[in-house]
Structures are given as C-alpha cells and as structure tokens.
C-alpha cells in the first residue's frame, strides 16, 4: 500500500515538475524571442529604410549592421526570430516597405530555411515552410511547392494549392489540371479570394475544366465561370444540367439563369422530373426567368404532378412570373356569389336613383312643428357574410330584400306625389338603404314577415327613412289614402297583403287596426312600439283602448303609455273601465285611509311614518283631510309628512322629466322614517345606451314600480298597495345582507309598535 502511495506521489511530482519545467522553458524562450526581436527590430528598420542617397555616416552604419546581422544569422535561433519578425512585419506594412521586407528576407537567405522545411517529414513543418515562402512571395519556390498539390496530407495539400495559385498566374490552371483530390467549399472560397486579389491575374477559360474527371474541379470551374462571366460555353453548361451530382446540376442551372441560356429550357424540363426538390425549385425559378407562354403547359403539369408543396408553389409562381396573374390567390379566400352581388348593386343603384329623385323635387326644408310625426329608423345592420353554405338562402333573402326596397321606393314616391308630403330624409337614409342589402338583416326581415305581427314596428325599424316628418293634415290624408297599402313595404305573401288590407280599415291611427285584432301579446308589442314612436297624437287612441279593450293588462299598459304622453295623470276605475283625471282629490285611493281610521294613536303615527316613506299624490289628499285632527301630535305629524311628501313628489316629477335620456340611471329611493331612524334603499340600474328599443320600453315600464325591498316591508306590515301600473319582471337577486337588514328593521318596527 505504501509502495503504491510512494509510486503515485513520485509520478505526481514528476508530472508537475515536468509541467513546471516546460512552462518555464517556453516562457524563457518567449522572453528570449521578445528580447531578440527588440534587438533586431532597429536593425531591420535600418535595413528597410536605407536609401541609396544616404549620407556617408548612414552608409557606413548600414555596412556595419549588415556585418552584424550576418554574424547573427549564423545562429539558428536568431535566424528563426528574424524570419518571424519579417513575417510579422509584412502583414503590417504595405507599399515600398513591404517590398523591402520581401527583398530583405531573401537577401538574408531566410528562404533557404523554408526550403529545408519542405523536406521535413513533419506535415506541420512542411506546411509552415510553404506558408513562409508564399507569404514572403518567393516566386522561385513555385516549382517546389506545386509538387505538394496532390499530397495525401490534406493540410500540406491545401497550403500547396493556395501557394501555387498565389505564386504564379498559371498556378490556378496547373492546380485545376492536376488536382485529384476534393476541393472543399472553404478551400474554394480561399482560392477565389486569392485569385480575386491577384495582381494582373488573367483568368483562363474555365470551361476547359468542365470536362474534368474530378467533379470538384468541374464544380469550382462552374463557379469561376459564373464569377468571371465566361458565357461562351453554353453547350457544356447545358450538358452539365444532366450531371449526376446535384451540386454541379445546381451550379449549371445557376449559370443558365445568370447567362439567360434559353436553349437550356428543354434540358431543364427533361431533367426536372428526376431531380430533388432543391434542384426542381432552381429549375422552376430558371424557367420563370427564361420562359414564355409555351412553358406554361410544363409548369401546369408540374403543379398537377408535384406533390411537394414548395415545388408546387414555385411552379405556380413561375406561371405568374411568365404571365402575371394567371394564377390567382385561392387559399383562405371565401367564395362569393357574383350574381347576388350584382343584384345587390342594382338595389343600391335603385336607392341612389330614388334619393336623387327626391332631391330634385321641391321639398320643404323647414322642419314641421309639434303637429308632425317623426318616424325614426333604428336599423342595426350586420356585415354580409360571404359564405358558400348560406348562398342559396342568401339569394332568396336578397331577392326579398330587393322587392322590399323597390316597394318602399314606390310607396314613398306615391306618398310624395299624391299627398305632396314634406319629407325630410337624412343622410343616414342612404346608408341604411345600403344596409338593407345585408343578408343577416334580410333574414331577420323574413322572420318578421312570417310571424305576421308588428309589421308596422318592423317597417319603421327597418325600411323607413330615419326621419319622415308629416304635417297633421298630411297625416290625415295619408291615413285615408296611403296608409293601408303604402306603408307596408313587403309584398311578399298573402299574409302580408291581408295585414295591409286589415290596416287599411283604420281611420284614426296606424296602430289602431292591428291592435283590436291581435292577441294580447301582440297588442302589448304594438303598445311598446307605440310608446317608442308615438306622441301626444296617440292620446285619443290610447283612451279608446282603455275604454274599449276587455283585457285589464292591455288597459293598464295603455294607461301607462297615456300617462307618459300626457301631462295630466289619468286613472282607471277598474269596475266599469272609466278613465278619469287625477286632478281632484281622491281620498278613497289612499290605502292608508281605512287602516288609519281603525287604528289607535300609536299605529296612526306609524302609518304616517309609512306614508312619509312610500306615499304619493294620493296620500296628499288624504293628509289634507287629516290636518284638522284633534290630537296635536298627529296633526303636527300630518303636517310634517305632508311637507316631506310634497317635496318628494316634486323630486319625482323632476326625475321623470329626465327619464328619456340615453344613459339613464333609474333610482328608486325610498325613505323609511322609522322613529327618527331612516334608511335608504337604493336601487340603481344603469342602462346602456346601445340597448334595443325593447329594453328601452321595458325600462320605461319599470318607472312606476316600487322597489322590491319595499314590497317585503309592506308585506311585513300587511299593507296592500294598489296594483302595479305596468308589467314588469324581477330580474335580480337580493343579497343575504339585505335580508338580514330587512329582518332587523321589521323586528325593530314591531317593537316600536308594541311600545
């Protein structure tokens, strides 16, 4: 064990000692070389910059230095250092100094050392010798170096190749003639670089080497032909397209393209099918460059027969290169029915013509006063989806749309001529008329026609100009003469005609006819439309509905709209459906009256609090009657509640006047004055202005509703409110927090009652 330890220790010591020794030896040699270089550099500089016209002193100094250097050169180390110095210098200097360096190198006989190196058996020494002779431009060494061109050691061979080409103008020819080995790509580049920088280099005709048995020589020759633009050897180049080697083939094709050898087209076509993808692409590229219409057939064949995507694409682009836009882009392009587009264009033209015709007429530009009606068109259109799948249905719908447009056009013209209506058509009309063409809108229209309801609404929503203002007299005239037929743009099916005929029986309002004959749902829809589009002029009609209609819901809805249009508040006597105005005090309407009369003092106070919280105008009349109560507390409380109620009703009126704004926030603020403590429940529902008119209608319906929280409270207090004035749906949920608060308030309220 110890023996092995000693052995390894010994080996380790030897190893590190040898490293230390060799490292120091190299370092010391480096130092010596540096020192020697510093010694030699002034001498070299003196030699390099010595001039014949120097002074005697300089001449004598020069001679001394020459003698000195001869002495130094007797030492091999000095010779080596001097060679290195000169080799380094020749890289950094140019011009006359460089020439002087070359001359000095040979004058000092240093090239003989390089020759000696050529005889070495070590490849690196030989290579270094060749490099020295090449760098120092020892031209006489050419005959010695060229022997190494076919040396089996690749480093020597490559060095010899460069030396041969560098040292003599004919060196390249000799090299191409004699080399048997592969010429690597890198080596070709280096040789080309040497040739390129060679002074007075006269390039031989490289086509001579196109017949070489060494394919690398052929390849290099082709590249040189291309580089030196030697375009005399077309036949050889064309022939090389058939070469088995793909690189040569590619280079030959490249030459063909560069020299525009049209004769090569047939050869290119013939070899095309047997080539690899890369060569095929090159051939197609070349044909695209050289070809004409006659070659389209071949290219189309290539498109059909080739399975490779790139080749196919190249063939297509070649076709387009020869005859531009022969092949149109197809990928990712949706196909469009051109007939439908044509039809739509015609429709567009019709509308444009109609618009122009309107402009030519004497249209009263003055807007009509409050007795006019305005029909708003709120068409929301979608873009045309050019889809093959929907093509058939699209055509049908488009046809219908065109019919619609044409009918509308005729109707409007008739209206204008017969009734001499003053019609204002906004700029939007034209855009909307174009929008009518859009397929999705047409689909929607078809559905609407089939439903056979709300025709007027859809008509107004869809096809009427956005603003058609008609005076009252004209309206009457219109209603008598045109309304039944001409306001309906759809001449599509029998159902629609029936609807038109049905509407024609109306003498008072355009909504009248539909209303009495439709079912309740349709009636409500019509009322919604009426609410959106109508105005004060609908008041008589609404009154008629309230008095004549049998459905309570419809009557209530009509009443709601009536109250909306009217400045006066109307009410219905439900038993005999009598409509009356809410100007006079209606004591009996207050829900609190009966309860109040039968309650004790504490309950009365609580009820008054409730009236303050939830009461409206009805309670005001009731409160008036209570002002002269015997109990001063109740009397004062009544006055207080009355004041609060009056304030709130005033606020509600103000708020309702702003209800038509676009972004509306409906607030239902209910104040519960429960024994000096009040809490406010607030519901805020923000409506987006972009919502449909239907939503708008629903929103308006909610205006007369009480908040849900208050419903719960009333339920707890067992108070019954009058029936709601409209139809509404609860579409929100209450949080747990609300229920907790609610329970707390109710219990608090009950305790108060007990007290």
């Amino acid at each position: 064990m110890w023996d092995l330890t000693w052995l390894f220790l010994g080996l380790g010591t030897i190893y590190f000692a040898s490293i230390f020794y060799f490292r120091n030896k190299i370092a010391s040699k480096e130092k010596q070389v540096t020192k020697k270089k510093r010694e030699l550099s002034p001498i070299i500089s003196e030699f390099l910059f010595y001039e014949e016209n120097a002074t005697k002193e300089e001449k004598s100094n020069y001679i001394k230095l020459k003698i000195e250097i001869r002495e130094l050169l007797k030492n091999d180390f000095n010779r080596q250092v001097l060679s290195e110095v000169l080799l380094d210098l020749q890289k950094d200097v140019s011009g006359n100094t460089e020439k002087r360096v070359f001359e000095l190198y040979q004058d000092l006989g240093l090239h003989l050392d390089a020759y000696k190196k050529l005889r070495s058996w070590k490849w690196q020494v030989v290579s270094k010798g060749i490099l020295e002779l090449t760098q120092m431009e020892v031209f006489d060494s050419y005959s010695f170096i060229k022997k190494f061109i076919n040396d089996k050691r690749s480093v020597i061979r490559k060095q010899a190749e460069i030396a041969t080409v560098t040292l003599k103008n004919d060196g390249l020819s000799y090299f191409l003639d004699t080399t048997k080995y592969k010429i690597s790509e890198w080596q070709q580049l280096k040789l080309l670089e040497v040739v390129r920088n060679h002074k007075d280099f006269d390039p031989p005709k490289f086509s001579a080497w196109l017949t070489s048995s060494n394919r690398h020589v052929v390849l290099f020759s082709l590249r040189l032909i291309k580089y030196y633009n030697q375009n005399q050897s077309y036949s050889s180049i064309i022939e090389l397209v058939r070469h088995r080697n793909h690189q040569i083939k590619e280079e030959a094709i490249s030459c063909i393209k560069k020299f525009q050898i049209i004769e090569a087209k047939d050869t290119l076509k013939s070899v095309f099918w047997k080539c690899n993808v890369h060569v095929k692409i090159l051939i197609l590229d070349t044909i695209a460059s050289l070809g004409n219409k006659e070659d389209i057939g071949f290219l189309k064949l290539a498109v059909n027969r080739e399975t490779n995507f790139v080749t196919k694409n190249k063939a297509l682009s070649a076709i387009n290169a020869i005859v531009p836009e022969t092949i149109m882009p197809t990928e990712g392009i949706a196909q469009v029915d051109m007939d439908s587009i044509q039809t739509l264009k015609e429709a567009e033209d019709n509308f444009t013509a109609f618009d122009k015709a309107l402009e030519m007429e004497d249209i009263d530009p003055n807007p009509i006063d409050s007795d006019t009606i305005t029909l708003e068109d709120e068409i929301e259109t979608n873009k045309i989806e050019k889809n093959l799948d929907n093509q058939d249905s699209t055509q049908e719908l488009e046809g219908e749309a065109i019919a619609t447009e044409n009918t509308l056009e005729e109707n409007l013209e008739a209206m204008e001529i017969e009734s001499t209506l003053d019609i204002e058509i906004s700029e939007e009309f034209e855009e909307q008329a174009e929008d009518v063409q859009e397929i999705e809108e047409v689909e929607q229209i078809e559905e609407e026609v089939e439903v056979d309801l709300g025709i007027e609404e859809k008509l107004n929503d869809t096809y009427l100009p956005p603003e058609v203002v008609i005076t009252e007299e004209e309206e009457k005239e219109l209603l008598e003469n045109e309304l039944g037929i001409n306001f309906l743009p759809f001449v599509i099916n029998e159902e629609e005609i029936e609807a038109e005929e049905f509407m024609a029986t109306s003498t008072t309002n355009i909504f009248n006819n539909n209303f009495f004959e439709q079912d309740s749902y349709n009636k409500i829809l019509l009322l919604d439309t009426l609410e959106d589009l109508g105005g004060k002029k609908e008041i008589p009609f609404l009154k008629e509905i309230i008095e004549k209609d049998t459905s309570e819901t419809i009557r209530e809805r009509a009443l709601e709209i009536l109250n909306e249009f009217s400045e006066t508040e109307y009410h219905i006597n439900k038993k005999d459906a009598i409509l009356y105005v809410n100007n006079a005090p209606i004591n009996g309407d207050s829900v609190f009256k009966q309860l109040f009369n039968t309650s004790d003092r504490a309950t009365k106070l609580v009820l008054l609090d409730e009236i303050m919280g939830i009461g409206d105008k009805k309670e005001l009349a009731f409160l008036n009657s209570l002002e002269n109560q015997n109990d001063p507390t109740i009397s004062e409380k009544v006055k207080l509640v009355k004041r609060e109620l009056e304030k709130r009703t005033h606020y509600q009126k103000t708020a309702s006047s702003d209800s038509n704004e676009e972004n509306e926030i409906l607030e239902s603020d209910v104040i519960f004055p429960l024994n000096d403590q009040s809490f406010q429940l607030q519901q805020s529902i923000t409506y987006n202005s972009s919502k449909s008119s239907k939503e708008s209608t629903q929103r308006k319906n909610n205006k007369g509703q009480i908040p849900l929280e208050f419903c719960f409270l009333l339920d707890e207090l067992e108070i019954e409110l009058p029936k709601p004035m409209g139809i509404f749906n609860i579409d929100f949920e209450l949080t747990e927090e609300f229920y907790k608060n609610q329970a707390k308030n109710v219990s608090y309220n009950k305790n108060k009652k007990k007290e």
Partner: protein
Amino acid sequence: MQEKKRLLLADDDELLASLISFRLEKGGYEVCLKRDGKEVKEYLSQNIPDIIVTDIMMPYFSGIELIDFVRNQLKSNIPIIVISSAGNEENVLSAFELGANDFISKPVSPSELLVRVARELNKT
C-alpha cells in the same frame, strides 16, 4: 536649427511601432512611443505633443477614448491621426466624430504615414 516636432505614437504592437517610430524619427520628428492607454494618459497629463498618432485597439485605454480625453478633458486641438485595421470602419467613424484629424489603415505604409503627419502639422 529648427526644433523637432514632438510626436506621440501610441501602439501596442512593438514591432510595428518600432518600425514606424524609426521611420518618423528618420523623417525628423521627436517620437515618444507608448505601449498602452495608461502610459499615454500619464504622458499627456504632463506633456502636450505637437501631434498624436494612435492605434484604435490598445489595452486599458482605446484610441477612441484617447481622442475623447484629448478633446474633452484636455480641451486640446492637437492633430490626431488614427491607425486602424481594415474592416473597422465603425470605429473610424466614431474617431472622426470625436475629433480625429486623419486616418490610416493597416497594413501601414510608413512613408505614407510620414506624409500625413507632415500635412497635419502644416495645417496647424
């Protein structure tokens, strides 16, 4: 006797610097040879030469920095000739932007450099 113009030659290539220095001395200049940027800076803090010939690539302190130092720190307008290897155009442009007067590329022709130095000194 006319006083010799002082020339600062900054180049880390000893052999080439020695050769150029020899040629410039022979051309009548008093050449101060410095191997790197530090030496140059030290020298310049005490002496101001008539002209500077500098290599761009130097240890510690490049030729570009030297120009910047001379122009912005020393606020001196002494002529500066830059020596640069071929294919280093960007540095040459930077040198000119900073205030270099002339440029010569490697391999250097010492005779050409001598002419350029003389021309720059004559300008001043």
